[in-house]
């Protein structure tokens, strides 16, 4: 059903497979499942986005505190960017290790959540098929990576906005603290981290201000503004921008890979379909219903002349490699030769017309197929003799093929009006009959054979 529709609508094999799949999906209500799943995935993504927004804002509030205590710069930076950088690093590492879904647990959790949301019978089929398809198209890693980067970008964006908000609305003082490190180390760390943002135009605190921010000295307001700019710049440059860049890249790759996904017609399931969807041939119907086959019958003729007493033997369409006349032919029997061509046939019929026979034996090759023509000839000949028998030759080595052909000869001859006594499956008893020897009289036959 679906196959027929697909064949009428699609041009090539790939198209037809897809059309058939669509119709089958409609029949099995898979399209509804897909809708459900899409809805679930959207819902899950929205939920994750919300969580990301909240997490971002929470991280910002947690890192900066309520302004009652000075903000420890390095600890704040780790709190803001630590987890993000770690997961980013893992994502990069996953390329080296080569895990199938690319080590993005945010992406994985999206799938997991979708699976939980879109429940129902056969609900597991869809994500599995999707995974397999994406995996085959090498798009899964990039799709999940894209989702993960998007969520991180949202979280960082929300974090940034929250930071901007509370930094604008509250007074914070920034400092650094250390027990182990020297102030120089701190200056080095801060300027190294600040170098890239400075290139992008962010205002960075100078070495003197950094040195002065040890929490022991009173700093000017401008220095606090510089520190907040440093913090924001670090979040933007080391958090948000790489995530956005990777997001765009991942989406680009996903799009390209998804676009490149095509049907692999060699896959086992599809390969089996080829002969049904793109057959190499089709039936074109019949011309007219078959009519009953013509059947020849023996018509015993009224002889114009009295039949002669001499028994006749004739070979019908015997192959040239069969010895003729058969050895041991009684002298009383007249051999009319082998008849196969049109002129021979005509001559035989004319002769018999002129001189009908009392007894005639017709020898046929049982290895050939009895066709209507030969059966009609036998019937015609039988009509010209008072008594006529048929001998089937070549059954000496009975194997399966010749066995069935002997049966066909029998059927055809019986249908033409011969009786079973008139049909011999061996030549010797047939010749006995022809020579007038009673059946089973071996001595008499031997005498004939010897003479």
């Amino acid at each position: 059903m679906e196959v027929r529709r697909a064949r009428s609508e699609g041009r090539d094999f790939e198209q037809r497979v897809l059309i058939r799949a669509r119709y089958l999906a409609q029949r099995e209500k898979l399209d509804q499942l897909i809708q459900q799943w899409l809805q679930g995935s959207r819902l899950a993504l929205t939920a994750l986005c919300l969580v990301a927004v909240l997490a971002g804002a929470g991280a910002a509030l947690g890192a900066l505190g309520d302004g009652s205590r000075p903000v420890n710069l390095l600890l704040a930076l780790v709190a803001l960017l630590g987890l993000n950088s770690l997961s980013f690093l893992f994502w990069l590492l996953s390329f080296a290790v080569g895990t199938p879904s690319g080590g993005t647990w945010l992406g994985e959790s999206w799938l997991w959540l979708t699976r939980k949301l879109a429940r129902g019978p056969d609900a597991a089929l869809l994500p599995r098929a999707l995974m397999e398809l994406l995996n085959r198209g090498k798009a899964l890693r990039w799709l999940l990576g894209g989702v993960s980067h998007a969520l991180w970008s949202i979280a960082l964006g929300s974090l940034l906005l929250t930071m901007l908000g509370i930094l604008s609305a509250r007074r914070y003082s920034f400092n650094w603290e250390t027990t182990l490190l020297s102030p120089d180390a701190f200056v080095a760390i801060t300027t190294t981290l600040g170098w890239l943002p400075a290139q992008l135009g962010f205002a960075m605190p100078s070495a003197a201000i950094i040195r002065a921010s040890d929490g022991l000295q009173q700093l000017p307001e401008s220095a606090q503004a510089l520190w907040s700019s440093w913090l924001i710049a670090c979040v933007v440059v080391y958090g948000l921008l790489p995530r956005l860049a990777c997001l765009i890249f991942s989406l680009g790759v996903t799009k390209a890979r998804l676009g490149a996904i095509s049907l692999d017609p060699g896959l086992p399931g599809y390969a089996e379909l080829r002969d049904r969807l793109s057959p190499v041939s089709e039936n074109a119907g019949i011309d007219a219903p078959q009519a009953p086959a013509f059947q020849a019958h023996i018509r015993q003729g009224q002889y114009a002349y009295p039949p002669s007493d001499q028994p006749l033997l004739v070979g019908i369409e015997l192959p040239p490699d069969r010895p003729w006349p058969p050895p041991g032919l009684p002298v009383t029997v007249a051999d009319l030769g082998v008849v196969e061509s049109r002129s021979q046939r005509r001559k035989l019929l004319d002769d018999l017309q002129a001189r009908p026979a009392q007894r005639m034996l017709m020898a046929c090759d049982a290895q050939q197929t009895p066709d209507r023509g030969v059966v009609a000839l036998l019937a015609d000949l039988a009509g010209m003799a008072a008594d006529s028998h048929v001998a089937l030759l070549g059954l000496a080595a009975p194997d399966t093929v010749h066995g069935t052909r002997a049966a066909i000869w029998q059927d055809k001859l019986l249908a033409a009006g011969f009786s079973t006594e008139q049909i011999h499956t061996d030549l010797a008893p047939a010749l006995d009959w022809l020579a007038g020897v009673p059946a089973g009289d071996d001595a008499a036959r031997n005498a004939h054979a010897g003479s």
Partner: protein
Amino acid sequence: MPDHDPPLRLAVVGHTNTGKTSLLRTLTRNPRFGHVDDSPGTTRHVEGARLLVDGLPAVELYDTPGMEDGIALLDYLDQLAAPGMRVDGPERIRRFLDSPESRRRFEQEARVLHKLLECDAGLYVVDVRDPVLGKHKDELAILASCGHPLLPVLNFTHSPDQRLASWREALGRLGLHAIVEFDTIAPALDGEAQLYDKLALLLDKHAAALVALKNDVALQRERRHADALRLIAELLVDAAAFRASSLPEHDALETAALALRRAIRNREAACVAALLKRYNFRSQDFPAHTLPLEGERWGMDLFHPQALKDVGIHVGKGMAAGAMAGATLDAFTAGLSLGAATLLGAAAGGLWQGADKLGKRILGRLKGYQELSVDDAVLRLLALRQLGLARALEERGHAAQKPIELDVQAESPASPERENWRSGKLPDELLEARSRPEWSTLAEDYRAGPRRSEVVLSLARKLGTFRTGDITR
């Protein structure tokens, strides 16, 4: 399609019971076309089939009833021709078709001639086991008078009692020198190409369509071959990767081995069914595979040691017999050593699912479970048997009635590739699959990555070198 040429129309004619319907079955690759029997007059109407190239009919073939009464028909045609009037062949045939006997004694012959007059050419099918007789010459004379080219197609040329030489001589005397040998039961691999080449010589107006058809036939054959190899590669990967876990007690192990064997047998049967389908044969063409889950044979059961010996696979001491036949206890080492990279990746990416799965296996190991996998020798047997089947299907005509018999016996001529499958090292792809239980579609936690399809494709390529020098086109 206004710019599309009308398809070439060919009437398949010949004496009765020479294999006209068989020829159509083989050319259309459709074992369900018409009705075939070793008896005269099996087909009593004209039935058509179209050969498609890119979904468009390129050639229309018409299966006709057999000519059975050629001598009498020629007599009748002579009667119809009024003395002193010269009429050409086709005109004589037309007069015959208007005559009353064309609806009585010569009803079948009339259908044949009617169709042949409509067609561009005729394929005259000959059973070369028959002697050349006057009736054949007469019916050829009648067919020739339709005024269309006739191409004799010699059928049953592989038969021991064929009379090929006398047929060639007789046809040559009748002026039919372009002759093609085409055994419908076991056609030569390039048989169809030869047939279309010869036809293109006779019908130069349609040569382009015939060349396109010939190329399409070759393309389809290559496609089928590639698909078959892929099906076999999938089977081998599924079997190699499959694992059944069990408690290390004797009874539990036996049950697990039984389950493993059943799963692999069913998988093999599925592969056989898919191959038959791909080559468009019916399942009764290969009845051997409808066999038993327990024991006996598929020809010979997959897990029976004798089956391995029959195809010449050396059975080592490691191959257990009896209840555990064909299954190997896995010491988990391969699984773990290759799993290490996965473990690392899983841990690094926080990919709990991968770790979870591996964890389950390690946990199972700690609990004392053991895993069973399919023995190497069984994989070899699977490969050899399926390759043998694919080859048999490739060489089989769609008219063949006898069930398929596989030729993968040990004593059959050994190619180095086949020898390699018997005793050489198993391909790396299978060794890799061994360490990836999740790659087996038989497994409950089947999970395939892109790597699996790469492995399957590369294994299919290796399987392709199994057969060398078969196709010489």
